[in-house]
């Protein structure tokens, strides 16, 4: 079993190395076999471990031993990490398989490069969830950031892709700092890095240290999960090829924050403020992102904002202590969001990479199979019974409602409003892009080609999972709770519902979300209400939403510009600290020879002058020190 646990990591690692080093001009077929193959192999390993009911911390060797600083290389196999591994390798495997078809137009080199990045990404994600200590967790955490940078910047010749990649990276590095500092605080306070030794050492009553550590870790979680206020990278990350977006969003990267809070639940249980902050950030992000999704016209961006919103639900759940509800929603979201992205990918593929929904229409007619699967995903996202999204969302909101305190009711209410908005924007997406007659601006005339089988099968699998996956846990209608039971050894008991009021709330949410979904029909198909009319009446609101509450502008003003000036970049158009090479480096440097760089005149005398100035400063400091 020890070797098998390691094999989960070794398979994607071997795949990544093979594709990166040996196969950069090898055969396409081999690439298409190895890329998804290694992930399925890891999936099988996870299944075997699961079948043998392994629950153990495997230590392979001691990495560093220096005094009290001891870091083992260990893999923690428990139900939580197995659960995450199932999602990552299972859904991830489907996505990589789908990519075999989607990326077929790339050149051979790019093709191998893409699957190499994908395998590395999955590897980093698996390291993140399998890590048995905080140092190793950071390795995975940083690795995920790096590989997502590579994936988003995959089309490196597109300027916007490069900038988006950089943005994602910067946001992630901010998170990494939080993570590292948080782990550092935990180590300094409790002298442990291994989870199984660290968690028992934590106090059960709140104190400043645990609050600080929990907040710092939360910074990492927020950045990786694109929660407020570090969310701006996610929509821009749509620059990557579609399966990438699907992978990044649904299966893995953005759920890392949820996993983090669940993994560190002994820490969060011991805190008051940090724990509540998780719930509040989640709830506010859910509403915030759902409102922006109302006005986006790029289908991938709508999906991106809906992802933020759904991750917000998960944060909400783990923030109120309903860990397994949060993870159930994570699973359910992995199903339906991957489904939505891949079905949308089929459409985008057929429409020659056009992502603007205003140019769509008529898809129900032309691409029936993709449309049906997209509908299943949409209904699930909107939370309509009996799709998986209904059960998981209900689970989250029910837990919030039955918590019975101010925080619980507050986040429940926000979640409720968000659910209604979700119904509406999902309806808009569905009716507007798929149902209505073909737009005249559609880039491809005539009949559209349905996607090839290699792309349809993963979508179909996910569609089935989306439809029946809810029956894993049907607490909403008083049945069993398989996910809760599975995760109980790690996360503890869930609360039991106490009164009938929650069921009323559930029904209310369901009905209103369904009505909102239907109401979208009146807007975009029947034209009973006109979107243009509403826009005219509430123009300022639409503008705020379209500019995404001006977050980009705010960050630009507050951070990017001043830093630009500092480093001597005055060029407005190039709002970045470095140029990753998309433009001519030579020309760039000529422009970028900035203020600081001007001091480096090349004149020997000025160097001596600076030297002497340094001596004077040093002298003043030494004298000041000596006299004080």
């Amino acid at each position, binding site marked *: 079993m020890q070797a098998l646990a390691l094999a989960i990591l070794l398979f994607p690692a071997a795949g990544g190395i093979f594709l990166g080093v040996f196969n950069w001009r090898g055969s396409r077929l081999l690439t298409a076999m190895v890329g998804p193959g290694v992930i399925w192999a890891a999936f099988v390993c996870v299944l075997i471990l699961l079948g043998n009911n392994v629950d153990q911390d495997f230590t392979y060797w001691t990495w*560093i031993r220096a005094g009290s600083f001891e870091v083992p290389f260990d893999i923690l196999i428990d139900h939580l990490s197995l659960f995450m591994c199932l999602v990552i390798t299972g859904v991830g495997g489907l996505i990589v398989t789908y990519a075999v078809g989607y990326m077929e137009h790339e050149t051979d080199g790019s093709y191998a490069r893409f699957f190499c990045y994908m395998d590395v990404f999955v590897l980093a994600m698996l390291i993140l969830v399998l890590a048995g200590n905080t140092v190793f967790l950071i390795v995975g955490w940083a690795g995920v950031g790096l590989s997502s940078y590579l994936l988003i910047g995959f089309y490196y010749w597109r300027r916007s892709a490069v900038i988006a990649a950089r943005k994602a990276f910067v946001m992630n590095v901010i998170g990494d700092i939080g993570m590292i500092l948080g782990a550092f605080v935990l180590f300094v306070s409790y002298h442990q890095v291994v989870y199984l030794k660290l968690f028992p050492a934590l106090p059960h009553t709140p104190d400043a240290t645990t609050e600080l550590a929990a907040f710092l870790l939360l910074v990492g979680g927020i950045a990786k999960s694109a929660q407020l206020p570090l969310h701006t990278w996610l929509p821009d990350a749509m620059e990557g090829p579609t399966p990438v977006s699907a992978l990044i969003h649904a299966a893995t990267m953005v759920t890392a924050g949820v996993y983090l809070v669940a993994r560190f639940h002994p820490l969060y249980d011991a805190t008051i403020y940090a724990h509540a902050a998780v719930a509040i950030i989640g709830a506010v992000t859910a509403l915030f992102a759902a409102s922006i999704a109302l006005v986006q016209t790029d289908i991938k961006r709508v999906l991106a904002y809906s992802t933020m919103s759904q991750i917000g639900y998960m944060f909400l759940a783990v923030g109120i202590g309903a860990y397994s509800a949060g993870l159930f929603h994570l699973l359910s979201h992995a199903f339906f969001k991957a489904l939505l992205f891949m079905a949308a990918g089929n459409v985008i593929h057929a429409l020659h990479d056009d992502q603007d929904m205003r140019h769509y229409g008529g898809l129900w007619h032309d691409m029936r199979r993709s449309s049906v699967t997209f509908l299943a995903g949409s209904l699930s996202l909107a939370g309509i019974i009996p799709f998986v999204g209904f059960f998981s969302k209900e689970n989250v909101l029910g837990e919030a409602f039955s918590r019975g305190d101010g925080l619980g009711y507050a986040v429940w209410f926000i979640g409720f409003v968000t659910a209604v908005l979700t119904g509406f924007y999902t309806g808009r997406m569905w009716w507007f892009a798929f149902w209505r007659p073909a737009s005249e601006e559609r880039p491809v005339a005539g009949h559209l080609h349905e996607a090839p089988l290699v792309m349809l099968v993963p979508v179909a699998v996910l569609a089935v999972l989306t439809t029946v996956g809810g029956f894993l846990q049907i607490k909403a209608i008083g049945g069993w709770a398989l996910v809760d039971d599975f995760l109980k050894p790690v996360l503890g008991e869930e609360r039991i519902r106490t009164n009938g009021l929650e069921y009323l709330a559930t029904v209310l949410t369901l009905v209103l979300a369904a009505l909102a979904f239907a109401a979208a029909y009146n807007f975009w198909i029947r034209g009973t209400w006109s979107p243009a009319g509403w826009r005219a009446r509430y123009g300022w609101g639409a503008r705020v939403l379209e500019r995404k509450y001006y977050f980009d502008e705010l960050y630009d003003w507050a951070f990017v510009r001043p830093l630009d000036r500092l480093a001597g970049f005055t060029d407005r158009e190039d709002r970045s600290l*470095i140029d990753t*090479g998309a433009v001519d480096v030579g020309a760039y*440097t000529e422009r970028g020879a900035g203020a*600081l760089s001007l001091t480096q005149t090349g004149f020997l005398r000025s160097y001596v002058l600076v030297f002497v100035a*340094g001596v004077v400063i*040093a002298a003043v400091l030494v004298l000041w020190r000596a006299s004080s």
Partner: protein
Amino acid sequence: MIAAAQVTYTAAQAWSDLAQIGPIVAVTVALLVAVVVDLLLPRGLRGPVVTVIAIVGLVSALAIAAYRLVNGYGGPAYFRFVSGDAFALFFEMLFALIGVLAVIVSSSYVRRRGLYEAELQVLTLAAIVGMMSLAAAGSLVTVFLGLELLSIALYVSCGYNRIELPSQESAAKYLIIGGFASAFVLYGMALIYGATGTTVLSDIATRVTSDSAGNPLLLLGVLLMGVGFAFKVSAAPFHMWTPDVYQGAPLPVTAFMSVATKAAAFAMILRVFNYGLGHLGPEWQVLLAFTAAASMVVGNLMAIVQASLKRMLAYSGVAHAGYILVGVLAGGRAGVAAVLFYLFGYVFMNFGAFAVVSTLSGPAGDGDLYEDLNGLAYRNPTLGVLMSVFMLSLAGFPPMVGFFGKVFLFTAGISAGWTWLVVLAVLTSVVSVYYYFRVLFHVWSPLPEAPVRFAFGPVRGPVTVVLLAGVFAVALGPLSGFLLQVGLNGAAPLLSGR
């Protein structure tokens, strides 16, 4: 003390003293033999033979140092003017290793650039003798001699490409500013001598107590020496020479200088400040804290805007000097060990990066622009992957050695109360990720359409070196526990004397 020498100096004592400086002797012998051989042999044979002699000398120095370290033979020699303790042996091994790498890289480089080979190797050996003397120094006189020996050898090496203006300019600038800084160091030493009446470091350590803090001679001495030392480690604001000299000098010289000079200068700082003037801590710490902070900020910001890899690495070197100074400031066993650890790791990652760049140079010149790296990962996968390893390590990504080095430095810094400096260091190292990743980006971008400006010549030598350095940089990550133990061992002599 000198009077006593005439009475007690016996042949047995002479042999034991000679053994204490065994590694230095080995390199010196190789140097002398190389000079003579160079004169005797016909032109075509000179280069290869001298290179072999240099490697033999360096490897035997390495072996002697390792043997003495393992057996714990170290001790003072020559009336405590020199010491063969674990600290000295640690650095002697380090310099011998760098020397071997440098000799191999330069041998291939000078051939590709059509320069004379033998003299460069001789100069490298001379510089290494100087560096080893610095690390082994037990008195200010030895410190000064070692410092000048290494500096003068490097002045000449920088101007080695005699017909090219950048090389000449680099040498002239280095010489004039270096001489200026040396004069500062020397005056500082003279003042310390005046205040204490001795140049032997262990005597200074006992005579300078915390009470002598008010002595103006000492204060001025510390100030002048500190400035000169900061110059040698290329810490801001005394760093202005670094990028120009690095850019102009031939690539192997730059590579050698960037790691070896820095290590030697840190050995000198640790010897003189942490050991000799340990009781004046508050006075020199304020000076070094200022330069450390300035280095981290200036180095990282300036590195962002560079187009030349050499200049970028020069500024990154300034920044790293800042990080290492944090460990020097922290002092104590943990701090010194962290410095030794970091220097060891830094040597391989930085030298490796320069060695990769050096493979790009041909008869036409050095290919040191970012664009010259385009598609490296596909042109030569080994170099591409290793360059990525070096960059990740320099950026401090786990599980590379650079990460552990930073962890140790910063942990030592925090436990010694330099929290603000560590916070600054962490923030600036985040900035540094940008320019290191820019390199990665070019390495992994697809092959350029246009013909490559610098194709690969016969580069087996450098590739070996890069491989070696890469293996070290990667392997040291998992082995960091062991290396830290070696560092702790090396730090011990500096602390026991007090």
